[in-house]
């Protein structure tokens, strides 16, 4: 009895420093955010006025909030198509026995953009999109498609697509790597059996790879959607929500409310929305992870 007690005390001593860090810097702020959203306050004035849920009411009448939600959703949908959909196909092709010897080269190259800071990638693409000196229009003009040479980040109709495209450039290779790692865990016997049956490559992909990858595909889907609702850096760097407010996402809307307009209470309500969305998605992911473990 005493031995277990001493044992647990030692264990807690080992865990405590990390736990305190996480409680103080990760969990406490979440609680404070909920509390903060009930007050009208700004960063330099000590006075706070209790407003209850007033800011939440205002948020749901704010057209920019719906622009942001729409843009975050657009981010999610396009990222699912490219990172999960096309990423999966690329990974499957890289695993094909005729291609596999080229795999180390391609997967290394495809992964490289994801190790660079999003802010740096944003600054780079802002130059690449530059209508006069940028590479994008340079390529289009060289290909003889001058009419396609647009002001990518300057047009409120297309700017959000230009920003989303950068994320696909940066992160498709990351997903390819995750899918490859999962595919390499599929037992070889399954493929052998398919070969004996004379199954085509497409059939093998549909009837062996896909079902075996089910869990990883779901996890990848959730990671991607969560990522889409956490977007901040690239939008802030490339367009800062503009032109107009056309590329505003929840993250940039929060930043603007807090540090440009100094409406800390209102900004906190946006924080709550991000919290609810990402937590819900994470719980779904956790559930998937658990069900996968049991199998």
């Amino acid at each position, binding site marked *: 009895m005493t031995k277990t007690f001493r044992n647990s005390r030692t264990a807690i001593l080992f865990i405590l420093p990390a736990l305190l860090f996480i409680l103080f810097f990760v969990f406490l702020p979440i609680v404070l955010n909920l509390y903060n959203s009930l007050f009208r306050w700004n960063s330099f004035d000590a006075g706070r006025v209790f407003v209850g849920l007033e800011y939440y009411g205002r948020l749901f009448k704010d057209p920019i909030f719906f622009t942001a939600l729409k843009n975050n959703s657009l981010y999610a949908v396009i990222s699912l198509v490219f990172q999960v959909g096309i990423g999966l196909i690329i990974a499957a092709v890289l695993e094909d026995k005729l291609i596999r010897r080229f795999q180390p080269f391609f997967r290394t190259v495809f992964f490289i953009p994801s190790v660079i800071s999003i802010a740096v990638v944003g600054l780079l693409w802002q130059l690449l999109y530059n209508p006069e000196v940028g590479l994008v229009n340079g390529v289009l003009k060289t290909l003889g498609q001058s009419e396609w040479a647009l002001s990518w980040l300057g047009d409120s109709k297309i700017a959000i697509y230009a920003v989303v495209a950068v994320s696909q450039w940066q992160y498709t290779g990351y997903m390819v790597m995750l899918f490859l790692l999962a595919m390499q865990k599929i037992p070889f016997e399954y493929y052998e059996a398919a070969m004996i049956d004379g199954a085509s490559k497409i059939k093998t992909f549909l009837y062996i790879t896909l079902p075996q990858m089910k869990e990883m595909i779901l996890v990848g889907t959730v990671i991607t959607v969560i990522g889409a609702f956490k977007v901040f850096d690239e939008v802030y760097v490339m367009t800062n929500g503009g032109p107009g407010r056309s590329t505003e996402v929840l993250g940039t809307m929060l930043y603007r409310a*807090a540090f440009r307009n100094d409406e800390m209470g209102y900004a906190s309500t946006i924080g709550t929305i991000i919290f609810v969305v990402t937590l819900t998605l994470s719980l779904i*992911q956790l559930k998937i992870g658990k069900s996968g473990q049991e199998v």
Partner: protein
Amino acid sequence: MANNNPVVKTNEIKEIRTGSSKLSLKVKNRIFQTGVLIWFSLFALVIIYPIIWLGLSGLKSNADFFLNTWRLPEEWLWKNYKAAWDAGIGHFFLNSVFITVVSVVTVLLLGSMAAYGLSRFQFKGQNILLVIILSGLMLAPQVSLIPLYKLLQAIGLYNTYWALILPYVAFQLPFSIFLMRSYFLSIPKELEESAIIDGCNSWKVYRHIIVPMGKPIIASCALLTGMNVWNEFMFALVFVEDSALRTIPVGLMNLRSQLNTNFGIQLAGLAISALPMIIAYIVFQKQFVRGLSAGSVKG
């Protein structure tokens, strides 16, 4: 190697069955392979060319940059890199190095201790602690942005290196603990038991058995944490005000307005900030991939 035989056989079987000649299958395979290689090479070009363009344009004069987007630099202006370094990148770079090193070392120390406590002991409430720590993985940093900003001001750390290091450590710990704990669970218990019989206490077991045996995963955690901290932007934008304390991603943002027209120097600055991570990834690819592989089991 042992797997090769059945493959050859099945091809033969298939050919007999379908009656197609060996040649046509070869041709088909060749077409497939060539098609895929063309597709992937184009894709690789789209991925890598902007990065090469970044490095090369950083060596161009402004006139050269405007007139010859495509060509190699007329004159290789290495002094652009020097100019970018002197314009402030050098300072931001060193800030980033300091903040990254301190954060990584702290995460590795506290993380490996916590992972040891969570993997080598049996005690009541263990699962609750584990759930609390791992749920830190789910929380979006945006939610904490304003409260942390106020909190750091309240404890007098706003606008210091610690305003970045402490939140970075807290936000990076859950993932590292998750990775290290699953690895430590796979270390056989026998060594430890004999060490305890020899009179080692738990700290010695941690120092002399767990840490040395856990080196591979600790290396992976160091790389992934280092990369995340080096690249972090939002906290660095908000929690530090003084430009002398800026890290490289935010510093580059400031330089953009300062160097508005000098694209060569601006691009050189971007290259300087991207290069360490690209090199680290290529050199330590195995450790990177191990971390991703262990981390993606549950996401």
